[in-house]
């Protein structure tokens, strides 16, 4: 009887501990969400309130559509912003930059990488295994080693500040992930299907487009999403190879950092919106996510 009681107590304590850890990890994000709905008067108050008194969408307007702001509202809400010098303009063009660069690079990386993944999955050839693990090991390399020489090269080619320059670099960073994730998916497609195409006189290309790609399509989507996840948050290359007009979203996030502080509300609003695709992708992928993140260490 008492044994059962202590066990019940232990279960409750266990849940309390787990809940405490979980909330400690999630709390900053919840705080950020709350801050984005507060007025400056509210987030500059001590002690702070957890919930905003009323939902203010001012900071979302400020970040995404500053032209819709009513001047009266402005004088009321920017009371404190005057103090922290400067504000960042609408981030909508930067979101478009991010989308163009990510779209271009993911499409190219898939186009290039799928063939290598197919070769590694289906053929035994001399050097194949070494090539595969070498490609995977390239993610060990600190990106800044590439950034310095590429900065010089891009300047000579006149590609700094363009979308193209960053797309070319991102394809390189995504390729190892594309190849290893797609190889995994190709390994699951039975070889008998494509062999029947080959026996019927079809070429490898036909087998690829008619049989393998349709079957591995969910894998392609998963791979693309994972690449989007990686590139959406990439900062180092983006900060080196873009200028003020071609800046991507992470670069804009770094602009909110002012000498005397940060623009709390506006930045929170942008970050909340920037998190939406990442949240969606994490929910869709879940299992592949961990596989992708740990790829590279698994194969040694």
């Amino acid at each position, binding site marked *: 009887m008492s044994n059962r009681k202590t066990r019940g107590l232990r279960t409750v304590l266990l849940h309390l501990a787990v809940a405490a850890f979980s909330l400690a990890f999630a709390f900053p994000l919840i705080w950020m969400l709350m801050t984005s709905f507060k007025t400056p008067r509210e987030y500059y108050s001590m002690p702070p309130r957890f919930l905003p008194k009323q939902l203010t969408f001012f900071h979302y307007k400020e970040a995404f559509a500053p032209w819709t702001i009513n001047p009266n509202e402005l004088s009321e809400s920017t009371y404190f912003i005057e103090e922290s010098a400067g504000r960042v303009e609408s981030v909508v063009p930067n979101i478009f930059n991010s989308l163009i660069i990510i779209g271009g690079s993911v499409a190219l990386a898939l186009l290039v990488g799928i063939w290598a993944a197919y070769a590694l999955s289906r053929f035994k050839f001399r050097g194949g295994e070494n090539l595969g693990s070498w490609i995977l090991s390239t993610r060990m390399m600190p990106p800044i080693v590439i950034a*310095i020489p590429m900065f010089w090269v891009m300047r000579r080619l006149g590609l700094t500040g363009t979308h193209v320059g960053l797309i070319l670099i991102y394809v390189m960073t995504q390729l190892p992930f594309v190849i290893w994730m797609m190889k995994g998916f190709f390994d699951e497609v039975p070889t008998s299907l494509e062999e029947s195409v080959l026996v019927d006189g079809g070429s490898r290309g036909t087998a690829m487009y008619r049989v393998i790609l349709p079957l591995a399509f969910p894998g392609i989507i998963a791979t693309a999403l994972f690449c989007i996840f990686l590139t959406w948050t990439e900062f180092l290359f983006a900060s080196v190879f873009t200028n003020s007009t071609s800046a991507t979203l992470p670069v804009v*996030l770094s602009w909110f950092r002012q000498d005397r502080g940060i623009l709390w509300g506006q930045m929170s609003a942008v970050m909340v919106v920037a998190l939406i695709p990442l949240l969606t992708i994490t929910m869709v992928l879940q299992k592949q996510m961990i596989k992708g993140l*740990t790829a590279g260490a698994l194969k040694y």
Partner: protein
Amino acid sequence: MASRQRELRRAHFRKRATPYVYMAPTMIWLLAFMIYPLIFALVMAFKRFKLQKGLTFWNMPWNGLNNFIDAFNDPYFLLSLEKTVVILVAAVTIEFLLGFLVAWLLNKKQIRGDFIWIALILSPMMMPLIASGNLWRMLLDMRWGAVNALVMFLGFKPIDFLGTIQWSLPAVIFVEIWQWTPFVIITLLAGLRSIPEEPKEAAMVDGASHWQAFTHVILPHLQGQIMIVLLIRSMDVVKTFDIVYALTFGGPGQSTTVATFYLYRQAFTQFKLGYGAALSWLIFIMVYLISYVILKLFRRQESAI
């Protein structure tokens, strides 16, 4: 007859060449955007690189080993290396222990609704690094930050976490831990869940204590995951850049200028590209050595068990 043979040979060759043809685009891409820049950086490291009109790669003066000699005589670089090592040791140790503890708790049979807890715990991993730097700059703010509200609630004076040298480095380590412990948790949890029950029960039946069952059954099973966690986290901590950039920008003073941040400043604000390239190669070698040591350590243990 001869032509038939030639055709056969050609077909054979085509068959053997196919995988190489498929690999070609990837290899060309990696050669152009990875191998070539790496070699280029190595050559740069031996030159006195300046951004100046009329100077091209070819007529840039050679500098011998001077960039590397300068690096080891540069007190700021050595200091930044020290900061990197401090963060590496502190962050990876705490992340591992904390991650193990939480994964252990989550793996208990009594836990209900684990997907909710896991979703909450994983949320920091989704944050872009630059955004979590910003977010914590907000939370750790001296006057208005939520953390200082807690500090004051507990009856202490507010602490200027990001503005004093004794607190800034712990703050960076703290944010690293917050951001990446979830990765440790989820990897170790996957490992714990894949351990079959029987060996553990068998050990317990044979009279092993909980601790013995832990060290002899569970730890060996987790070896793969532990290696992955240590390897990936160590490599990533050495490369850490975004969080420092957003949280402290290397300050106050040099207190949080880690190696990557120092060389970023050397290369892209002072435009000492040759020197930056030399430093970046040194860091590359450091990352390589660290991963080599970790891999060797685990290989040896594997054979011992």
